[in-house]
């Protein structure tokens, strides 16, 4: 659905996005992770035909983003939720969606039906006729999400959709995004909230002006850390530690009576590891997989680039 090849954008001497190459499949939820200034918003703006690219190419549903004639078509395929909700304070939720629905040429009856459905799903129907300036931050964010969906776009670009929201507001938006996954909609989610990406995204890419890594959250974690096995013992003795070091594939960690042992292939290596520990006199209580968080993987990836 989205094919990006060597996409680059420079602002004077500054390269905001450098040679981004990526393919996002139909119905996939892809998270673009990165710190502020990593080029996430610039990427979305280029893909939404809002700003031009310096080099490279991208296609949305087969339409080239640099093609002026296709720009209107591309924009009609995309629902954009920018970082700032960007709503009209004097309009109500219904009038806001009606206005955007008209610009996207959604027929009147469909517009009305979709407005009711979206506002109901996002918990705004009860306040549909109140002016947006009376809304809380979370309500505005939800309305901005409804606006992005009023034309039922096959592609959705969400730029930090839960930024600056309180935990309750963020949860409502996140739950709604999780529901959107079922619609087979292609979603590009810009976020620096790793837990959000972990929960919602099929794959994530770490962007630091260049694409540093890409994969499923689990793949990303493993690609940085490899696999490790955590063994809890009655007591960690010198011979046990030595046996674990020989059976593992790197430096082991010892914390109290817990050993963390890097292994190349857990299924192949773990039986050998346990046998070695037992033969060295160790009493094994638990064996489990060490799971680094996405945050740890991200920090290591970003740290390596900065």
């Amino acid at each position, binding site marked *: 659905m989205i094919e990006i090849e060597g996409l680059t954008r420079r602002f004077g001497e500054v390269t905001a996005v450098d040679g981004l190459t990526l393919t996002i499949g139909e119905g996939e939820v892809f998270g673009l992770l990165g710190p502020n200034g990593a080029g996430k918003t610039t990427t979305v703006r280029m893909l939404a035909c*809002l700003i031009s690219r310096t080099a490279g190419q991208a296609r949305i549903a087969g339409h080239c983003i640099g093609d002026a004639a296709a720009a209107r078509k591309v924009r009609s395929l995309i629902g954009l939720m920018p970082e700032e909700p960007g*709503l009209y304070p*004097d309009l109500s939720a219904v009038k806001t969606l009606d206005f955007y629905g*008209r*610009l996207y040429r959604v027929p009147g009856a469909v517009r009305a039906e979709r407005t009711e459905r979206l506002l109901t799903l996002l918990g705004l129907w009860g306040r549909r006729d109140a002016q947006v300036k009376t809304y809380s931050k979370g309500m505005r964010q939800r309305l901005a999400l409804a606006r992005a969906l009023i034309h039922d776009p096959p592609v959705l670009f969400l730029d930090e959709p839960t930024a600056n929201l309180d935990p309750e507001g963020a949860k409502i938006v996140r739950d709604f995004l999780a529901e959107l996954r079922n619609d087979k909609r292609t979603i590009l989610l810009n976020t620096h909230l790793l837990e959000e990406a972990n929960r919602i995204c099929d794959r994530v890419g770490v962007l630091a002006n260049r694409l540093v890594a890409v994969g499923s959250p689990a793949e990303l974690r493993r690609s940085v850390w490899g696999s490790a096995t955590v063994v809890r013992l009655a007591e960690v003795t010198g011979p046990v530690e030595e046996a674990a070091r020989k059976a593992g594939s790197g430096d082991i960690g010892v914390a109290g009576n817990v050993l963390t042992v890097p292994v190349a292939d857990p299924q192949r290596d773990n039986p050998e590891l346990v046998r070695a520990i037992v033969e060295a006199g160790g009493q094994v209580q638990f064996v489990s997989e060490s799971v680094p968080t996405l945050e740890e993987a991200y920090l290591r990836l970003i740290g390596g680039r900065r």
Partner: protein
Amino acid sequence: MNYRNVATIAAKDMGIVLTRRSVRLSLVLLPLGVAIGLPQVARFAGGGIPAGLLPGFLTAFLFFFAVTAAMLPVAIASYSLVGEKVERSLEPLLATPATDGEILLGKGIAAFAPPIAAIWIGGVVFMALSDQETHARLGHAYFPNATALLILGVFVPLMAILSVEYSVLVSARSTDVRAAQQAGTLILLPAAALYVLAEIGAVTLDPATLAVAAGILAGIDLAMAFASRATFRREEILTRWA
């Protein structure tokens, strides 16, 4: 150009801007003040003006509507453009299939139409009251005439268009509605200067002079149209306006 998009944007902008009391008041009070106030000058001071000079005064008074036409659209265009900038609502609007030209034209119409309607109503009231006050001394109704038609039908719209275009340029560099309005009012200086020159008799606002002035103004409008169109581009707005 999709005119449905233009109409949708213009209707939305008019709906928002006209909810502002200050805009509504300026749209009503300024043209109405001119329409009612200036004929009273002819009424109370007219006796001291020789009948032969009265038409010149009336025409100059009517030309004040051109000054008003430079002033009023600035107030609306500033709300429409800088207001969107402040609320950061331009990005979602630019993300719709509407083209830059459609958005600009929609906003231009929203800033142009209400002042023009208010000025035309004010102009009709002014002409009726002026005729009432001066009919006995002139022996005929002075208005309507070709000069009035040129001022209200040509000069006022051209001045309002210039005001809108100038507001686009000013708004690109402003982050505050009031600052944009203040900077925008500079555009009324040429029209005000012409008004003063007409009042002191340095310029005669006859149809020929007005036609030449309107031609020059149309040329400036055209040049400003290109300048404002070049300023109001997605790329410019998202990378330089902020």
